[in-house]
């Protein structure tokens, strides 16, 4: 048997929990043979780096309607030409790549006068808008682990989307001031379905779908001593009062929320009212609020975009300087309005995740795609680059959901020498754009 190398303290590049206690074993064939500590999704992601049939193996360009393999220089040249010839290109994705690649993406967007957007525009964009409106009191996951005694998940199902969140950061874990772990904590779940997370809860509140704003507002009203109707959003008055009492008496409470609030009618207004509920609760106790960020580095995309351009997402460089207006410059808006005339998609799969009309327009314009795996988006790309898997085959920085930056390790080589890192590919395209423009 050949040599097997063990890497400890690896970081899982799947969800915003960014678990940093993963142990990986890599054999002499450059294959990950063992994954310790990761959840089922994280484990799958690590092993997916071995499955070469599912990976894009060489750069490809579309000729006579078919994708054919080519060399990297031809593909770079083709991509640069598409971006230069476009009047209003879109650069989108960035949430499953490391901070260095995100920074080069911004430079490229500025160079070609593009719309620059990340996947926050379809997930926690409304959260950002609400935080810009009304602020938010936050804490790191470490603080939560050490102190929290009332944990709430609203419109979020971490048991399915962030499987280790409860056991590693919030609920089951023992903390410095919570030596007995779950025995010293209460778990409240508010959701329209009796989700797997709800099944673990000490208190489950089944809210009518689409009525989150009403429920949160009723909770604020109770907190302020006002009368509320017998039933709000399908929840009995007594239940709401009971819930508010638990929350008021918490020593350290945390309200986690997910797409159940951001994608439901009201969107950023739902978050406004959740933030204000937490603000009100701080008159009685200590409470914080934290969005359950989905992709492992979507928080990083917002952080890096903000410190480089001033804005977290939905940025327009058409005038040579950044302008910000979600709803006007967001990826879906410019696709639905058929305004953009070319797109570069990096580490994202909009054909799986955007509404049909947006995908239809992406199918009609020249499309550059950078991705480690074959996806519905790579299938319809015009120039497709294979990429090293960030956090496995390329090192870099990711930002956890609480905006703590964590360095990710490289534990193995990409499958072949045609496969560059996201950052290298973007740097080459940027260099070529500058050269061709001279």
């Amino acid at each position, binding site marked *: 048997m050949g040599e097997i190398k063990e890497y400890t303290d690896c970081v899982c590049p799947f969800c915003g929990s960014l678990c940093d206690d993963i142990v990986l074993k890599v054999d002499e064939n450059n294959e990950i043979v063992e994954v310790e500590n990761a959840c089922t999704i994280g484990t799958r992601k690590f092993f997916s780096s071995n499955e070469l049939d599912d990976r894009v193996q060489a750069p490809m360009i579309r000729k006579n309607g078919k994708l054919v393999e080519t060399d990297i220089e031809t593909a770079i040249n083709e991509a640069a030409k598409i971006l230069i010839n476009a009047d209003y290109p879109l650069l989108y994705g960035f949430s499953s790549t490391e901070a260095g690649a995100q920074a080069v993406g911004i430079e490229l967007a500025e160079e070609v006068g593009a719309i620059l957007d990340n996947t926050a525009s379809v997930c926690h964009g409304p959260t950002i808008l609400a935080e810009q409106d009304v602020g938010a009191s936050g804490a790191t996951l470490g603080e939560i682990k050490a102190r929290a005694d009332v944990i709430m998940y609203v419109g979020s199902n971490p048991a399915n989307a962030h499987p280790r969140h409860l056991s590693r950061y919030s609920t089951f874990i023992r903390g410095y001031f919570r030596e007995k772990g779950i025995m010293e904590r209460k778990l409240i779940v508010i959701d329209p379905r009796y989700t797997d997370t709800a099944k673990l809860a000490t208190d489950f509140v089944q809210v009518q779908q689409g009525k989150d704003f009403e429920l949160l507002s009723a909770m604020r009203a109770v907190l302020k001593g006002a009368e509320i109707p017998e039933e709000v959003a399908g929840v009995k008055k007594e239940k709401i009062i009971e819930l508010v009492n638990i929350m008021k008496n918490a020593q350290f409470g945390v309200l986690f929320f997910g*797409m159940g609030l951001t994608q439901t009618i009201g969107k950023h207004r739902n978050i406004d009212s959740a933030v204000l509920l937490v603000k009100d609760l701080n008159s009685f106790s200590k409470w914080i609020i934290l969005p359950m960020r989905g992709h492992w580095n979507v928080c990083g995309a917002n952080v890096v975009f903000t410190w480089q351009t001033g804005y977290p997402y939905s940025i327009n460089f058409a005038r040579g300087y950044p302008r910000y207006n979600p709803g006007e410059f967001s990826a879906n808006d410019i696709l639905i309005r058929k305004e953009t005339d070319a797109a570069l998609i990096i580490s994202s799969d909009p054909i799986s995740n955007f509404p049909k009309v947006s*995908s239809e327009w992406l199918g009609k314009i020249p499309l550059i795609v950078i991705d480690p795996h074959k996806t519905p988006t790579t299938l319809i790309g015009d120039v497709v680059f294979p990429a090293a898997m960030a956090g496995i085959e390329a090192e870099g920085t990711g930002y956890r959901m609480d905006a703590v930056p964590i360095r990710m390790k490289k534990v193995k080589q990409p499958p072949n020498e045609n496969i560059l890192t996201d950052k290298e590919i973007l740097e080459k395209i940027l260099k070529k754009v500058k050269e061709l423009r001279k």
Partner: protein
Amino acid sequence: MVLKCNLITGRTIDQGRAYEGSKLSDEMTRAGAIVELDPDDMAELHIMTGSVVSIKTDFGEVIVRAIKSPNAPHKGVAFIPMGIWANQVINEDTTGIGTPSFKGISCNIEPAPGKKVLSPQEIAESFKS
């Protein structure tokens, strides 16, 4: 028989696993081309887990398999895992803030025996015509 429902989308653990590297596989179709329905709603439609159904909204139509929801009761609420099938029927309205409306779409669900559940390839390639 047509059932009026409120459609929501979201993550499931199977969908999450299939999303990692197997987005064009049968596993993806098994995890994503489904709709979780309340058992009472299924009884009303006279269907079982595995029955093929059509979901129609103002924004499109998609053919998926019904399954008995593990997260019931949620009568009147239909759940599709986020992904390429869900996105054929969701409301693209970004309500002025850039985020499409992925949850809370009124839909009609009816049995569609014999109809074909499309693969991710077939849906994706339909956009490149």
